[in-house]
């Protein structure tokens, strides 16, 4: 019985034990990976996006750009102030609006509006944008991110819910080429 090629009884049990552990580990890995990727899978098909009101139309004078804030539609109990988001609202005329994310299209720093020169300027790396959100100068490769907007029941409403980043699907969907102001 001392044939080296033969699988001993103990050897078989050990291999079965390893196989059994492998099966259990695989079975456990499924929920663990799904838990880890929860924030990614939930965000598919723009599930994070909703329409959020910014305020009555009258709050935004025609031809001007004002800072507005809204609460992110997706909130968890420990978010604190981080779910309050700022955006720049430009009322062109009547119900025609452009709503820009404050996040620079370069690396996401908050841009500031300068009424007199009609420019948005970024304090981080010096990106600048015209009043219609198009790129004026500096490192950004594109114009400001724009939220889709509509006027509903006299309220300016935008579709928001995700941090706008250069690669996010929302950035591709909306505002890649902001309509020219003139």
């Amino acid at each position, binding site marked *: 019985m001392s044939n080296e090629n033969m699988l001993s009884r103990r050897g078989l049990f050990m291999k079965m034990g390893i196989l059994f552990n492998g099966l259990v580990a695989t079975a456990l890995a499924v929920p663990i990976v799904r838990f*880890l*990727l929860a*924030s*990614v899978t939930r*965000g598919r098909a723009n599930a*994070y996006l909703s329409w959020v009101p910014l305020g009555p139309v009258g709050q935004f004078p025609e031809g001007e750009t004002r*800072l507005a*804030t809204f609460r*992110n539609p*997706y*909130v*968890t*109990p*420990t*978010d*604190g*102030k*981080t*779910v*309050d*988001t*700022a955006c720049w609202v430009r009322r062109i005329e009547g119900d025609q609006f452009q709503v820009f994310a*404050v*996040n620079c299209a*370069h*690396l*996401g*720093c*908050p*841009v*500031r509006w*300068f009424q*007199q*020169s*009609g*420019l948005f*300027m*970024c*304090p*981080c*790396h*010096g990106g*600048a944008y*015209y009043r219609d959100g198009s790129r*004026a*100068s*500096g*490192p*950004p*490769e594109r114009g400001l991110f724009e939220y889709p907007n509509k006027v509903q029941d006299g309220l300016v409403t935008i579709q928001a*819910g*995700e*941090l706008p*980043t*250069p*690669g*996010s*699907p929302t950035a591709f969907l909306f505002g890649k080429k902001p309509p020219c*102001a*003139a």
Partner: protein
Amino acid sequence: MRRLITQVGEWFDRRLQLAAPIREVSEHAVPRSTASWWYVFGSAALVVFLLQLVTGILLALIYVPSASEAWNSLQSLNHDVALGWFIRALHGWGSNFMVAIVLIHMVQVFLFGAYKFPRELTWIVGVFLLLITLGMAFSGQVLRFDQDAYWGLGIGASIASRVPILGPAIVKLMLGGPIIAGATLTRFFALHVFVIPGMLIGFVCLHLLMVLKLGINEWPMPGRVVRRATYANEYHELTKKDGAPFVPYAVWKDLFFAAFILLAVAACAVYFGPFGPTGRPDPTIIQTVPKPDYFFLWLYALLSLLPPSMETPALLIGPVIAITALVLLPFLSGEGEKSWRRRPIAVLTVLLIAVTLGTFTHLSGFTPWSPHMNAWSGDPVPKRFLHGTTALQRQGALVFQSKQCRNCHSLGESGGQRGPALDSVAVRLTQDQLIRQVIQGGGNMPAYGKNLSPAETTALVAFLETLHPTEQAPARDAALEESSERHASPQP
């Protein structure tokens, strides 16, 4: 009494059986040349890491990893809890020192050729330790959940989002949701407190194990060449002929330096105090100029100086190339000369990298690429530029300020440096060129055509034309003058 201690010690060692291996490890022979002040950085990095472990656990007694409470708990550490400020300062300065010491250790190992055969894997593990240390530094900056941390995360997300196809998924994985919020802080807390330190401890153990197994790198002598076939015997001979026990022959320098570094961290902590937190992490407060901690300042500078089209490739491919090069280094030059005296390219590479990183870091101190957001209202036009000017020119100076030109252009050394200083712009550009530049922009300047009335443009250009030194005449259009001269002078 002494007998009792010995007996207790023996009782434990009968069960643990650790005394012999510990004695063997501490008394193992090392080449006498390694008992040098150049060989103290590795142990110093380990000691600072231990300090970080202790102070980190102490901070965790008070810190609340919640987006709504983290900032408040840091305030109470700074102001309410006795010596909370000191523990925060120790941890913050400890992190700065750790990054610096790890880098110095790496440079020393590189210049002394210590990464060569048979210590290739020690070097590679060291490269991972550097990356892990930087990961600790970044995640630690996030836990200081203030404005810089918030916008720093935004920058991280913007960079991550540029990865082709997977970008958006990586961003959501990194943030733990669609935006920077509660889940972002808790996952960075888990990374900073459990995952990365766990990896760090594991890799440090591996790193040390290999140092013990393979021996400390001997002092490199020009002409003593490393060969795979003979090195092990040569090293063995060296430790036998010219070796000394690590304890106490070499260790006292490590001990002195470690104590000195701890003292330096403590001195910085007492003198400079803790880092921040800066303003509350409230994204609706946009009057902020976020800046990374010092070890990432070079990157901050690089990102504003690269041409826009090169940025994404540089961000995504650059780190891959750098890490690959570091990992491949011991395989590409695993043999040969160790001494820096015979490796001029190695020395030049270190100098080049050091000067580059130093220059970028220095530039980040005054960010010439950023507009000065308040220069238009805060820095008046210096009086000397208005001496003896006409009403139109003064009107132009007013336009110059109110249209925020000053945010990017300096006059008399104050104002932004994004665009060129305009103290002598009239020497460089003629009237026509000035009008064209203002209206159409170009060369990284926005076009102001839509934001200036013709009257404002006229006034502004009239003011800009006065900006030249008294001894230097303003620029003229030579072509125009030539043609007018031709018209004026009678044809022969």
